[in-house]
């Protein structure tokens, strides 16, 4: 009898406990008051200019925490330096997952860095969210269901440029300058795919290494090919050099630059605003220097955020807009989880983003994911630089 009653009490206790816990499910790194997220960023080394993104995200979460956090929980973003070196990324990610026990990885930056931990994170079922690289291979839910990218894929963007060239300058000769790594080559592939059977239009390709002091020699070679369309796929410093050199040698091609190299503060101004006139790019977020967004509510919030939480930062640096946008999306996803902050639910919410607009995204551009579509943003809009700012033209392209 005693054993039976003990058993009933035990059973009742279990049921009661289940009922109490049923509303709250916590994955690792979550308590009633805190959510731990982790990321690796290149705060040192050749890609250190992107460290600004990590700083912006830390500041944004600070702002959210000051406003009460997400559903009452403060976000703790542990941001570690991996110096853009894959072995170090592996080490830091293992630390975040195994020692710091974070709930998820957020906005890890760099294609090789993310490649190094791709399999590990998916094997360990850790959400690998909104990673800061546009490489196309991240949108693969069938094989890697725990990894989702963030920005429009490089290939999609390059295909938009290809279509633009085919429409506005058919039969032209194209020259390409690209960074000799995953990033540059992904764009180049996209361009070639977009040109379809007209890849013969590309008459010259020149690559550069991030350790090269200048790209002047490459520009001279490209001019020598007789091309009248130029596509610069570069990071800010080299894009600025390219734009300036193209102007200085008196070459006047239709000059396209990729999105990463379109920051007015970090590229156009150093290159020379007058030398940048006529450039074409594709955008999906608002440029902080563009006066047309002065009255825009979203950008006003961004400016207020920068003033209060990053007062010493250079507000013409697009990295701060990008980081803000990614962090805002993350907060939305976390909010949608409610009290079920298990890794499974977080992944589910991240894979079910519907028609989200961010403070900093261009009007008409929506963020969407689905269980079989892990490409968050597939839309961009073309813009032309008029000597002061990027002037949008045409419609938003993409799905």
């Amino acid at each position, binding site marked *: 009898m005693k054993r039976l009653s003990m058993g009933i009490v035990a059973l009742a206790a279990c049921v009661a406990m289940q009922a109490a816990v049923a509303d709250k499910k916590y994955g690792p790194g979550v308590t009633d008051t805190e959510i731990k997220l982790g990321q690796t960023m290149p705060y040192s080394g050749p890609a250190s200019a992107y460290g600004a993104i990590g700083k912006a995200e830390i500041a944004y979460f600070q702002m959210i925490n000051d406003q009460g956090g997400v559903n009452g929980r403060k976000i703790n973003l542990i941001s570690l330096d991996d110096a853009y070196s894959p072995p170090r990324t592996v080490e830091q990610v293992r630390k975040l997952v*195994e020692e710091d026990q974070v709930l998820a990885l957020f906005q890890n930056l760099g294609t090789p860095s993310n490649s190094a931990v791709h399999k590990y994170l998916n094997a360990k079922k850790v959400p690998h969210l909104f990673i800061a690289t546009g490489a196309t291979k991240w949108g693969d839910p069938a094989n890697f269901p725990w990894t989702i990218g963030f920005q429009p894929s490089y290939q999609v963007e390059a295909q938009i440029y290809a279509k633009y060239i085919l429409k506005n300058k058919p039969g032209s000769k194209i020259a390409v300058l690209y960074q*000799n790594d995953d990033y540059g080559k992904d764009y180049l592939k996209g361009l070639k795919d977009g040109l379809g059977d007209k890849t013969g239009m590309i008459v010259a390709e020149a690559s550069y*290494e991030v350790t090269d002091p200048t790209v002047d020699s490459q520009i001279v070679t490209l001019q020598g090919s007789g091309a009248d369309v130029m596509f610069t796929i570069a990071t800010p410093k080299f894009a600025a050099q390219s734009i300036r050199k193209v102007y200085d040698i008196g070459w006047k091609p239709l000059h396209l630059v990729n999105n990463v190299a379109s920051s007015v503060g970090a590229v156009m101004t150093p290159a020379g605003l007058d030398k940048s006139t006529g450039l074409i790019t594709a955008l999906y977020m608002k440029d902080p220097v563009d006066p047309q967004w002065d009255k825009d509510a979203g950008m006003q919030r961004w400016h207020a955020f920068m003033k209060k939480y990053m007062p010493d930062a250079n507000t013409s640096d697009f990295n701060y807009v990008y980081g803000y946008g990614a962090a805002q999306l993350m907060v939305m996803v976390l909010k949608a989880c409610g009290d079920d902050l298990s890794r499974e639910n977080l992944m589910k919410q991240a894979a079910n983003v519907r028609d989200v607009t961010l403070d900093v995204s261009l009007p008409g551009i929506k963020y969407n994911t689905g269980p079989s579509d892990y490409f968050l943003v597939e839309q961009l809009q073309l813009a032309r630089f008029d000597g002061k700012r990027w002037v949008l033209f045409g419609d938003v392209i993409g799905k």
Partner: protein
Amino acid sequence: MLGLLVLLAAAVALPFVVSNYRVFQFNMVLVYAIVLLGLNMLTGYNGQISLGHGAFYAIGAYAAAILMDHFGWPYWATPPVAGALCFVFGFLFGLPALRLSGHYLALATFALAVAMPQILKYKRIEQWTGGVQGIVIVKPDAPFGWKLTPDQWLYLFTLAILVIMFVLGWNLLRGRVGRAITAIRDHPMAAQAMGVNLALYKSLTFGVSALYTGVAGALGAVVVQFVAPDSFTAGLSINFLIGIVIGGVASISGAVYGALFIQFVPNFADQLSKAAPWAIYGIFLLAFVYLMPTGVAGFVRLAWRRMRGAKGREEAIVPRGADS
């Protein structure tokens, strides 16, 4: 001898007392220790400055990755092949390097290290190397169904290889060959006059040094489970040089101290300062060089000798810096 056994026992016990993440870190320490022993042979004992060992490490790593990924080789068969391949490359590099010394040799080796990432990205060999995307490697499980995590097993595997290579190296450096090598460093002309074949020994040392580094590279690739050109920049070679200086030039135990330094001090510096961690690292470097001019190994030896009084045994070979 007893001390060494105690150390070995501690090393074997380590993976069972610390977390998997730490085991991974210590595994890298073992890998770096093998590299540093190789580099020490060339630069410390033989006086040929190499700023390019990262290149041999990369060759070893890629050899392992390609064998495992393209040809399905098991991981344990890759270190010997990586070592042999690097021996050949090292020897071949050492031949023309005979004409260079000091700063000029440093530049030539540094040029090799700097060019390595670009070579690895070259499109003609892309189908083997994976180009800019690199190659992902699967971590092996413990064999025979032993109850070890992959991290623990790999650590013990690396430890076993390290012990073998250290014993071999110690034997080599202690005997005739070692004496010939250091004689070449200290007084090449006298050594030659005494009958030491300068060209042969110098090139062989280059080869053996590269062999050690290649084996370590292969092991490192399996531990990290990923190889890409960005993993093997010139900074890696500089890191190895720092390792042997801090650990102790021309010393075998120095390899372990140096490996501990280059693995853990950057992390430590990161914890001390988020704003400028590498500045803290630089200050650590300066501190170590000022306070322990003969490296940690030299410092330990001095302290040991002082503790044991004047009866401490002298080393047969007194370590000195490489020629300028």
